[in-house]
């Protein structure tokens, strides 16, 4: 377990190639079904996903590939299913009574619902929530909670992980003298970056962000957006956002959802400037939503 936790996603395996117009200019159906190009190997794949809350059909036949070491933004109006999709990637939907999932979600080719233990899945696919939710304990204990959960006991190891995680979340300098202070005393923006550090501390491979800046002020938001740009070197990031400018600024790929269907997905630039579907065009132009 310890070794598994310590193992870092090796960014060098997938060289940063920037946006590749060749790879993602393909039409929607092909974007989700065809073999992905080598330089953007897929990290997670969603196949024919149908999701029901009791009788409500929340996701309808979604197909989507999340390329490794890229930021994918899920956009769409409220209630379109983008958060639902995000929560099914780390099985947080299991907590919702009456939630039923059909189809498949894979992480590195293994079925997330059948082949991977749920706690291990959630370690590998970390999540940052809409509202900052640091535990009511010290900054240090917040970050150390995950590693401790996965069996790391040695103080010096924990110290290293806490420092590295806080550095990765770009908040070490602000918090290094306050590690023993209660995390609830931090500002909202600091709390959210602490939550990112906490998520990074278990060495995830994928980071899910559920409108993680919507409760924050513009300066904190800018810091987190900048951070996401850094994080994709080591992690695959999938973010839900209501803020289309944010999707444009931060993401490499964008998927547009409407009423439980994935309407269109592709390169962020393409989706925003020359979408294939009229509904996408209307949405990104701000005509509804």
């Amino acid at each position: 377990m310890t070794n598994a936790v310590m193992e870092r996603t090796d960014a060098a395996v997938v060289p940063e190639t920037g946006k590749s117009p060749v790879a993602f200019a393909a039409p929607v159906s092909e974007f989700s079904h065809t073999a992905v190009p080598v330089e953007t190997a897929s990290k997670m794949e969603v196949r024919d996903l149908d999701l029901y809350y009791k009788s409500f059909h929340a996701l309808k036949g979604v197909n989507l590939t999340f390329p490794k070491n890229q930021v994918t933004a899920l956009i769409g109006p409220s209630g379109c299913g983008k958060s639902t999709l995000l929560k099914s990637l780390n099985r947080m939907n299991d907590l919702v009574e009456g939630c039923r999932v059909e189809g498949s979600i894979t992480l590195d080719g293994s079925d997330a619902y059948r082949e991977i233990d749920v706690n291990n899945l959630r370690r590998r696919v970390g999540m940052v929530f809409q509202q900052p939710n640091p535990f009511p304990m010290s900054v240090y204990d917040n970050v150390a909670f995950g590693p401790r959960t996965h069996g790391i006991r040695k103080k010096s190891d924990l110290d290293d992980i806490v420092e590295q995680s806080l550095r990765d979340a770009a908040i070490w300098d602000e918090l290094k003298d306050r590690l023993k202070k209660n995390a609830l005393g931090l500002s909202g923006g600091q709390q959210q970056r602490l939550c990112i550090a906490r998520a990074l501390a278990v060495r995830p491979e994928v980071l899910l962000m559920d409108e993680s800046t919507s409760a924050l002020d513009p300066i904190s938001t800018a810091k987190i957006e900048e951070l996401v740009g850094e994080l994709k070197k080591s992690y695959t990031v999938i973010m839900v956002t209501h803020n289309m400018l944010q999707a444009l600024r931060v993401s490499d790929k964008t998927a547009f959802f409407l009423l439980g269907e994935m309407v269109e997905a592709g390169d962020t630039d393409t989706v925003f400037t020359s979408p294939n579907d009229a509904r996408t065009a209307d949405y990104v132009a701000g005509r509804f939503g």
Partner: protein
Amino acid sequence: MSSSAAKEGLARALFAIAAAVSVLAVVLICVFLFANGVPAMAQIGLPEFLFGSTWRPANDLYGIFPMIVGSIYVTAGAMIVGVPTGLLCAIFLSRFASRGVAAALKPGVELLAGIPSVVYGFFGLVVIVPFIRENMPGRGLSLLAAALLLGIMILPTVITVAQSAIDAVPRKYYEGALALGADHERSVFRVIVPAAISGIMAAVVLGVGRAIGETMAVIMVAGNQPVIPGSIFDGVRTMTANIVLEMGYAADLHRGALVATGVVLFVFILLITMLFNAIKRRGEVK
């Protein structure tokens, strides 16, 4: 003056009187206790009264130290029995029990709160005391019997208060822990329970208050010898028991000494209440 204004004035007066009753009762009890108890304490001498180890009213020896120790022992014993049981039960009801199981257990806990203490005492006398007498040293009427019985009696208080504290922990903490790959047990014991700690402390303090003030059930099973017990199988007399047992025939200084025992008990309860409020306030600040 219009009739509506008169009505309003009348209503205000009624509410004010109703509100004053409880405050007035506390004030009157205070005045009564201190007016009757303090002179007796002065006459006996405060150190002799509080720390004297002999209670022999016939010889004018009024040392209540054995009773203070008795109350503390019995209360501590009740905590050892009741707090772990009550807290685990509260955690179970709040986070582990299925809806059906919780629906079956909860009325049981509530019923436990409604049983008169004399019935508890009777249960102790016919079940706990004989069991101890037959299986352990001593006569059965003992510190152990009182602690076991009181431990059961404080359960509803501890369970109800602790459970509402645990229920009130925001869901986002639980989700945050799960999202890091923690299982249900770890999320509950390492995140939710620590987050509810001030409410849980309040539950414990209320349990202490309940145990230290309990009288009837304790008298029936504790043996009531006014001596510091040497072991958990010896008899013990609490402050409450001391008052009840002798008030019927006490006169003069003896009577004053019993009221003074009530003063000491009152101070104990006051400290516990202050502690409870302090914990509650600290929890709110967080």
